[in-house]
């Protein structure tokens, strides 16, 4: 990345954040909440201690994984809204594998298999949307939304049906897995090294793939001009499917980690909306591999920190939703601004 570009990105990011703060402050003022105290508590609640930092990282990991996956689909010009369902499918597949491992002595093996299953689950779900798009011409946004609902329905059915706790019919989730099937985590910060590793691996792999491989180049070519890419000998459809597989695979890992590292069971809200949030993260991150994880970190802080609002200020913590909403608006505003500049001088906006 050129230094100038980096400067511009940072400028944009700072500007976006400024807009976010402006919006939020206005809303806080309107609701009569103590503005400074809110920011202070969100900050302290997310970065105020090592334990909290650990929580933030736990949120950051799946968010980053989803964001990395989305970079592939955005690169090829697909709006993979279905990422949410892909997280859920990853979680379902991982749970399915882990259920076999409950009585087993080879828990590590099952944990490993669950990650593979998560990848497979997410990828299959993404492929369905991709296939509908390439073969049936169904817009990936609608297909994705539909598949999200189906995935949610499958989770509910499993929890209420085949995977219910014995004698119990509750939407609260499946039976907790035994400790052996939890991802091992470090004592300090209680973060799972495997989780951290997969997030970093995802970032680096994505960066390398997009920058240095033919796949990355072809994704970009197809994304920017599928007709021309075809003339260059690149068939758009297979690459669209490939991008979907990557997106689904990464989100599937996120879903698997939600099961093995966070909740240790399957529950209806297993995806924690990280898919939708990741879409926002990537947009705010200017579709850039290096900035998106930072934005994901910001959102993770917001998510964890906002728990303080009801506790310390008796405020409804849905205020964090308001902040997220403000971020969406700011992101869209930023996008519009970018387009304006771009039409002014067709400059180097991409790497």
């Amino acid at each position, binding site marked *: *990345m*050129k*230094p100038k570009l*980096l400067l511009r990105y940072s400028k944009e990011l700072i500007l976006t954040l400024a807009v976010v703060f402006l919006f939020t402050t206005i809303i806080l003022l309107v609701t009569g909440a103590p503005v400074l105290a809110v920011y202070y508590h969100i900050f302290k*609640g997310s*970065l*105020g*201690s*090592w*334990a*909290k*930092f650990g*929580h933030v990282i*736990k*949120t950051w990991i*799946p968010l980053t994984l989803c964001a990395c996956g989305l970079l592939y689909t955005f690169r090829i010009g697909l709006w993979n809204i279905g990422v949410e369902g892909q997280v859920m499918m990853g979680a379902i597949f991982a749970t399915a594998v882990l259920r076999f491992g409950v009585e087993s002595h080879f828990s590590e093996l099952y944990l490993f298999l669950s990650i593979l299953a998560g990848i497979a689950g997410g990828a299959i779900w993404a492929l369905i949307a991709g296939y509908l798009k390439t073969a049936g011409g169904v817009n990936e946004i609608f297909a994705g939304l539909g598949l999200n609902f189906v995935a*949610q329905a499958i989770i*509910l059915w499993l929890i*209420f*049906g085949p995977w*219910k706790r014995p*004698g*119990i*019919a*509750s*939407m*609260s*989730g499946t039976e*907790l897995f035994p400790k052996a099937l939890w991802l091992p985590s470090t004592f300090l910060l*209680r973060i799972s090294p495997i989780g951290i590793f997969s997030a970093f691996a995802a970032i680096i792999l994505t960066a390398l793939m997009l920058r240095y491989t033919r796949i990355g180049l072809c994704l970009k070519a197809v994304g920017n001009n599928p007709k021309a890419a075809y003339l260059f000998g690149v068939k758009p459809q297979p690459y669209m499917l490939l991008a979907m597989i990557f997106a689904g695979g990464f989100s599937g890992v996120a879903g698997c980690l939600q099961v093995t590292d*966070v*909740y*240790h*069971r399957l*529950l*209806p*809200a*297993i*995806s*924690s*909306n*990280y898919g939708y949030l990741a879409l926002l993260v990537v947009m705010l991150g200017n579709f850039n591999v*290096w900035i998106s994880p*930072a934005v994901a*970190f910001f959102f993770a802080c917001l*998510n*964890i920190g906002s*728990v*303080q609002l*009801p*506790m310390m200020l008796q405020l409804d*913590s849905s205020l964090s939703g308001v902040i997220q909403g403000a971020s969406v608006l700011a992101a869209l505003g930023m996008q519009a601004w970018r387009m304006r500049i771009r039409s002014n001088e067709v400059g180097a906006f991409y790497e």
Partner: protein
Amino acid sequence: MNKIFLRILSIFWFWILIWALPTHPITATAAEKPFIFGLLLVGPYNDHGYSQAHYEGGQYVERKIAGAKMIYIDKVNPADRPGITIPQLVDDLMEKGARLVIANSDDMKDGIREAASMHPKIYFVHVSGDDVLTGKAPQNLMNLFGRMEYGKMMAGFVAALTTKTGKIGYLGPLINEETRRLASSAYLGARHAWENVLHKDPADLKFQVTWIGFWFNIPGVTTDPTQVAHNFYNNGYDVVISGIDTTEAIGVAQQKRLEGKDAWVVPYDYIGACEGASEVCLGVPYFNWGPGYVDCIQAVISGDWKSEWVWRGPDWQDINRPDTSTIGFVTGAALPASAKQSLNAFIKELGAGKTNLLKGPLFYQDGSIFLKDGEIASDQQIWYMRQLLEGMQGASSAK
């Protein structure tokens, strides 16, 4: 080359920044003076239902024990707080100095046990759980619950006295031992009134249980309780007993009343649930958590803490006495005076042990024996109710 270098540099700074920000690691906050306790509420603290009852119990503790201070987190469930787990919240409460943490929902069972085993120095009260009974509980975890069977029996009792159609609807949350127990108790109360006060044939009493899937409505996940209540009233069930944490049934009953239909409701959990619904509310069985909480905290302070399973009942002297009775029943304005009299008599009989509804012969839904003839149910038998009782309609477990 330059580019790569810059890239590495920027990442480096990014991570340095992140790692540098949290400057002070966890330090044991040894604030000795105020006794801070944490409360994890599954729903909103002002839900006019289960969570609010707990919240007010916490406020009661603050009034009763000098120096006690409550910090609470509400809406503790994965749908409302995506990505947040119970151990995380416990960490947070601890950082704020909490020495005892109360988790109010059955749903938090696993999380609170995990947290308890991670923090042996902190005390945990899991309300509605049975970890002590099952032996899974670590030393610093106890279970607390109220004998709501009695409250539910009273609820069923007034419902049966009121219904004109002989059809009572029970708006159930999810299915587990607790909810089966409570629904069955309501049925027993209703059948008792039907048989012994109204002298009618129990076969003519219809008691339908419909489960929504969770303690409260989660759009898109559970069945909508408002819808279920509507269905009840539309199908001739003129009294609905609510078993869920929130108050949807009251709203629906009021609406039906406006439409000119017969509709009554018996809400649940919170002493103030009938407020503003005098025309439809027959009364409410409620939890009064204050005394139970006070005992737990006092035990910690005085060093008498024991990991035990506590099931507190009503104070039969006066079931609505705030300082002693964990379970109460306040009648609503819609309950006729005659029915009120019968209820009072019923409560007296219960208190004196003259009437015990959990006495055999009682059968489960599938005809198997719950209690043999003359057998009086033990606490364990009541707690682990395996099915709904014979005579009730609705699922005993998942399909």
